[in-house]
């Protein structure tokens, strides 16, 4: 009985703090998506560009970002202002560095998703639009992109779910988010319970993300 009481007390103390820092987790998630989705599209354009140099640079970028650990990228982005520009690193940079590193990393993954989505649209769609007189911009914006969005929803959902879990990597830069708090509690309480609770948070967050995406997929199911 006493064990349960202790568990409950710990839980009550921990919950508000976890919840509070869950806000940081969500902000990392939202801000990363907000910037990496458009950046990924630009990168996909670069990757598909006729210009050989642009294409090669995009290719190398994507390959490096996907081929090295996000953890390392976080550290490099954090220290880059100092080593490259000699700017003193302040505390306020911490969160910015986390977001920047996540955005740069996820854009690379999204670029490849966009690229395969764009490549999967039949060339007849471009030709029909061209004959009707659509400009290249109109063709992409009105005809191609909407169809690409529908096709890439499943892989994008995958990346979003991975991103939710990846947010815990922010601890590398000592950015306190939910999992950091959970670990601190786990240490002070000598119990795995806080980590389990954090797991439950992630799970429900992902459940929400997945349901939301499923809803969007259903919405776009009006055509094949």
């Amino acid at each position: 009985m006493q064990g349960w009481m202790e568990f409950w007390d710990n839980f009550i103390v921990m919950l508000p703090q976890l919840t509070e820092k869950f806000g940081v987790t969500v902000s990392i998630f939202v801000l990363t998506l907000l910037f990496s989705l458009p950046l990924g599209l630009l990168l996909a354009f670069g990757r598909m560009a006729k210009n050989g140099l642009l294409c090669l640079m995009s290719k190398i970028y994507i390959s490096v970002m996907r081929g090295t650990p996000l953890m390392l990228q976080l550290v490099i982005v954090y220290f880059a202002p100092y080593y490259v520009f000699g700017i003193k690193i302040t505390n306020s940079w911490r969160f910015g560095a986390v977001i920047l590193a996540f955005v740069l990393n996820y854009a690379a993954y999204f670029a490849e998703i966009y690229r395969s989505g764009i490549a999967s649209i039949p060339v007849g769609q471009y030709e029909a639009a061209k004959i009707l007189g659509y400009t290249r911009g109109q063709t992409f914006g009105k005809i191609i992109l909407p169809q690409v969005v529908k096709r890439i929803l499943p892989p994008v959902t995958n990346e979003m779910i991975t991103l939710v879990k990846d947010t815990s990597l922010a601890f590398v830069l000592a950015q306190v988010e939910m999992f950091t708090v959970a670990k601190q509690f786990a240490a002070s309480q000598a119990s795995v319970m806080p980590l389990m609770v954090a797991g439950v948070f992630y799970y429900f967050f992902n459940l929400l993300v997945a349901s939301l995406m499923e809803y969007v997929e259903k919405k776009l199911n009006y055509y094949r």
Partner: protein
Amino acid sequence: MRGGMRGNMAGKVLLEIRHLKKYFDGQEILKDISLTVREGEVVSVIGPSGSGKSTLLRCAAMLEKMDAGELAYMGERAAYEAQGRCIYAPKEDLRRIGRRFGLVFQNFNLFPHYSVLKNVMDAPVTVGHLSKREARERAEQLISRFGLADKKEAYPCQLSGGQQQRVSIARALAMQPKLLFFDEPTSALDPELTGEVLKVIKELAKEKMTMIIVTHEMQFAKEISDRVIFLEKGEILAEGCVEEVFSSGQARIQDFIGKVTH
């Protein structure tokens, strides 16, 4: 066999192709093709598979770049030859010239995310700068004329092939082209659906719509063409009115027509 040929000789020249050459991978696919199409004419292009019929249409519609020769619509040059190369007019000119023709594809290429109505009215709004109201009126007219009034809110995937092809013809007509290309408009259709599409094209012919039609439907070609072009291995083997080409003494042509119709 419309017999309007002689009268049409006086018609305005809509399309003029001269000495068109086209290579794919170093192979000459079109060899010195010249072709003039006048207002109101219906021209059929027939010939064996791989003879270059689609390539000819695609070059004329500027989906494919010519390697040599001249292309002009209503007297305005879209491409000409200089120093042994084919030079195309500036982009803005090509865009304007491109408004003069439409193309109906073998596999329709409708926009799957747009309803029937939107497929037909979007280009006039986006490209033609028509008001939404005007474009919708025009689109609805075309749609009901082709017997699709009850389908205007449907999406292409909900339509039969024949219905889809009729929508794609309506979509092309909504831009009010002077000239319409068809690349085997019924080849992707089940036999029982070709009739409804051919009927629509016949109606257009009656209205003196200028059309160039690549087709394997010999009976249809006979019925509606003012002129038939027989293409083989990238060359025009015969050209003339229906009787001239279909009863030509050339063994190759008889052979082909026999094969297709039997």
